[in-house]
């Protein structure tokens, strides 16, 4: 910034407030002049001053010279005051090096050694810890191994015991089974001992063992015999029946013949007639008296073994029957 310009600016700044003041309305300070008088401003200072509106300005410039190097300070040797004195320090006079250096050395070496000791201690502590640990581990391992060995031994012994116990149980069980088997066998033997005889006797009783000839006779001969007997009897019965019918026819004829002449002697004749000791009329008389009994007789004419019911009316019949049967038997 140019110095004259700055000065101009400063002047302008100074004038601005003056103008401001001029523009302001004059405040009534003093009263208005009396009639005929005038207020006039008057300088009352010792020296009168010409007052004008504008300030007289004069521009002035100034410039410093170029910087010159500062000349070297002239050698200033102050005036000598005092006296010249020389001195010389011999060895050992100021201080004794060996004594003085001791504390310094002590500190130096002490600190170094302390540091070194710390480090060595650290390591030694660790080494001790490790050695301790190692010893402990060895001990622990040894004890642990012993423990495991004993455990293993114990386990083996227990297993062995268990196995033997199981074997023993097995043995007992087998023994028991064998005795039971033997007992069962003996019992069964005894039970079945008389099985065969009883079986045979049962079979014998129920007729499984038979004499073939006897059986033969029984199964074939006897039925044939019985059928023959039956035939014979039937023939006899037939004969008798025929005879009966003949006699009946004859009697009826005679009855018819004699009914024309009802004579008491005739009626006796048929009554007498059945009385001849002929087997056949006897039989017919019997037939007439027991006409109703014919069917019974026929019915009761059965195989030999059966007995006929005894009839009190026909005791004669029975006798004749028995005679008949005796006849049959003699046949």
């Amino acid at each position, binding site marked *: 910034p140019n110095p004259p310009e700055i000065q101009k600016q400063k002047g302008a700044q100074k004038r601005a407030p003056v103008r401001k003041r001029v523009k302001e309305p004059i405040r009534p300070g003093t009263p208005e002049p009396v009639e005929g008088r005038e207020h006039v401003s008057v300088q009352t200072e010792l020296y009168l001053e010409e007052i004008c509106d504008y300030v007289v300005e004069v521009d002035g410039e100034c410039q410093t010279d170029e910087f010159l190097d500062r000349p070297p300070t002239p050698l200033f040797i102050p005036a000598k005051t005092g006296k010249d004195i020389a001195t010389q320090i011999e060895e050992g006079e100021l201080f004794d090096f060996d004594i003085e250096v001791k504390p310094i050395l002590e500190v130096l070496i002490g600190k170094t050694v302390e540091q070194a000791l*710390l480090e060595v201690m650290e390591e030694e502590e*660790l080494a001790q810890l490790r050695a301790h640990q190692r010893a402990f581990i*060895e001990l622990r*391992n*040894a004890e642990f191994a*012993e423990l*495991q060995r004993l*455990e*293993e031994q114990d386990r083996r012994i227990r297993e062995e015991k268990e196995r033997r116990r199981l074997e023993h149980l097995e043995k007992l069980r087998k023994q028991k089974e064998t005795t039971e088997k033997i007992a069962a066998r003996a019992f069964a033997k005894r039970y079945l001992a008389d099985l065969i005889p009883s079986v045979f006797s049962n079979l014998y009783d129920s007729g499984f063992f038979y004499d073939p000839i006897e059986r033969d006779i029984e199964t074939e001969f006897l039925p044939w015999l019985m059928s023959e007997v039956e035939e014979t009897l039937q023939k006899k019965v037939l004969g008798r029946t025929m005879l009966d019918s003949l006699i009946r026819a004859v009697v009826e004829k005679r009855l018819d013949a004699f009914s024309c002449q009802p004579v008491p002697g005739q009626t006796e004749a048929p009554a007498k007639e059945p009385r001849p000791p002929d087997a056949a009329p006897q039989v017919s008389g019997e037939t007439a008296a027991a006409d109703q009994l014919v069917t019974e007789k026929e019915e009761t004419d059965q195989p030999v073994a059966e007995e006929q019911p005894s009839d009190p009316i026909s005791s004669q019949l029975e006798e004749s029957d028995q005679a008949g049967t005796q006849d049959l038997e003699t046949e």
Partner: protein
Amino acid sequence: MAQPRISAYLPPDIDPTKAALAFGRRALPKLNEELQSAELLTQQRALMALCDLVHDPEKVYQAIEIGFLDNLKTLLGHPDNTIRQKTTEVLYLMSMHSVGRWGLIQNGVISALTGLLDDPVDICRKNTHQIFDMMAKLPEGAAGVLQAALIPPLVLKLQTELEEILELILDTLANCLRMEVSEALAAGAVGALKAKLTHPSAAIRSRAAQVLLEISSHPEGKLPVCDEEVIPVLVSLLEDTDPAVQASAAGALMFALVTPQGRSSAMAAEAIPPLLKLVAEETSRARLNAIKALTLLAELPEGRETLLAHTDTFRECLDDPREVVARAAQSAIRAIEWKP
């Protein structure tokens, strides 16, 4: 304007890679804030400073109280390698102290570390496995590792990892499998370990035998060990040159021989002569384990016959200064001389 730095030259003993530590108790909170800053360099410097501070257990305690672990967990997934490496280093140093271990368990840092198992940077992986190893030494830590389902990935890593990391993995597995074995068996640990038993490095062999010991100490672990014919390999390891390998192999046999199949396969592999040699050596660590293994073999009739001839070896063990060995020798003699 006045600045705290007085001159343009830094004092000679400041490490420019580390953040400036505030005084006293303010150090850790300030580092906490710096860890959360957006600038990579600030975070790295803060981590470097933290690594140095964490050697002190009191600082570890204070850090855990303030809540450093949440920030560290977030940083575990940072893309920058240095940050991940330093974070894992800080966590490892924390886990060296008991306070740190408990803090890590309670804040669930183990599960946050599972993502780093496949990290491309070796050091990150190594630190991660070191953390797991330290945590597994604590029973709760081992439980934490098991819960984070780390066993199957660890078993898989057995085949692919570098040697020194392999040792760490085997140690971790040994401690975790002491608790529970089923997950490892499902992941095929026995086969993988059988391959490692013939590794050229003795440390790996002894550790692999140790893991097999832990597996076969569980009942369900004994069967796969017998099935996969690990016992002949273990018997051959009994004659190894390294005493640690012998001790671990004898220990693994000690547990695996409890089962009848184990015993028969051991008899078939002729385990008795090497075991007797181990028992005869006075100072071997394998003595105790060998005595126990022979006790188990003495329960077999043919084992008993063979061992009846060697009872004097056991009588020598009765004079061993360690009480455990003497007791083991006594039970061995009892088992040998037992008549059915």
